[in-house]
């Protein structure tokens, strides 16, 4: 590539030139065969890339390409800080879940016997309601204290 405007043609394709510079390069393109060939190559390259990834290169191209692609192939561009923020929040949330999610052993430790006593099987019997998890006791009482 010997033309000194080659790089500016590339910038024009990427929409990176100010308006006055764009007019100047377009004037040059009308007369420079080398830059015309380069522009054509850029365009072909962009089309090929778009076919492979479903993402058109460059802002105007992307809008057009997304409109043509099916829903499952469409893409959006997200600013890097936003992606970083989302990832950070996801990692913090994951660590929090792992830390505070009750492990099976903790479940055992915090399980209350009375919760077990109230199983569907035992709801029907007459004595489950007396079981509050206490230890059996046996005492001698005088009959005056007792029932008889």
């Amino acid at each position, binding site marked *: 590539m010997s033309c000194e405007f080659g790089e500016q043609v590339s910038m024009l394709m990427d929409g990176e030139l100010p308006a006055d510079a764009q007019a100047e390069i377009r004037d040059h393109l009308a007369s420079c065969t080398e830059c015309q060939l380069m522009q054509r190559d850029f365009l072909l390259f962009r089309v090929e890339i778009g076919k492979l990834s479903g993402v058109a290169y460059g802002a105007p191209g992307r809008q057009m390409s997304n409109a043509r692609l099916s829903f499952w192939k469409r893409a959006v561009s997200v600013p890097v800080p936003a992606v970083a923020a989302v990832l950070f929040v996801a990692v913090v949330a994951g660590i929090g879940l792992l830390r505070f999610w009750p*492990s*099976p*052993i903790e*479940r*055992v430790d915090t*399980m209350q*016997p009375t919760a*077990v*006593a109230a*199983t569907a*099987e*035992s*709801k*029907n*019997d*007459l*004595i*489950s*309601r*007396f*079981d*509050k*998890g*206490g*230890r*059996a*006791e*046996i*005492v*001698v*009482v*005088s*009959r005056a204290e*007792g*029932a*008889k």
Partner: protein
Amino acid sequence: MKIKFFLISVVVLACAFLVGDKRPVAAETQVRRIRFQVTAIGETAGESSVLAQTTIEGLPGTDFKINLRNGSFKMEARFLSDLVSNDKIRIKASLETRRSYGYSARNLPLYEEDTQKHTLDLGFDQAIELLPFGGGGGTDVLKIEIVPKMVYLPQGPDAAKLTIDFDKKMPGGEISIEASKTPHTFDVEAVITADGKPVAKGNCHCFIEEPQEMILDTVAVGDAAFSTRVTIKEFIRGGPAGMASFGFDLDRIAEGAHELVIANGAGVGLVGDSLSYPLTEISARYGKKYELKFRIKLAE
């Protein structure tokens, strides 16, 4: 004067009869039995209701078992009773409870288990209160009352019968009661022989399930004494007189020092028969064939 003396004598005798013995004269020809009334009472906020009631009656020495089971709790309460005097019963109570606690990390069931043993001397004016779930249940308390009573029956085939009357049953069968009459006291003889000749012997009176220490005093000059700790574990019906299972340890006592000869020995034998245990270790050491012989008999 004679009439007056006669009348006073009659009054004094009558008073002595009424005050001195509460039993009727006819009781001398009657058989003493013990009746246990077992009542399960549910107390809720001060209100009591009888959930189940059973009456057990049999000769002194009648044993019974109360089983309680619900969805997550199981209790087996065993009561061995003995009449120790005219107005007192000794109850040996053994409580075993098992409560489901939940599941482990590997999804295996976890249980709380508890075993308690109590010896209770009980008068006929007293009762046993068994609280299967303890007394700290707030307003809801389950109580099983066991009330003993001495009763008399005329001598005859019914006098020795063991009866259980289920006066009120729980519809779900949560409480069940069993009763039995088995011997509780045994006489145990132990003899150590050396080359077939007794060198030490002793005897003791054992109550079932209670370890009993027995010294086997030397009866031969030059031989050591022994001591054994015997526990009659169970009386098993079978054979002409039944069988007894027992466990024991044996020590040799030489110059005041105890040397363990057998640890955790055990056996099951016919009541009245002899069981032999060769003592190989001390036989090899002292150059004689030593044996330990046990004979277990029912106590009179």
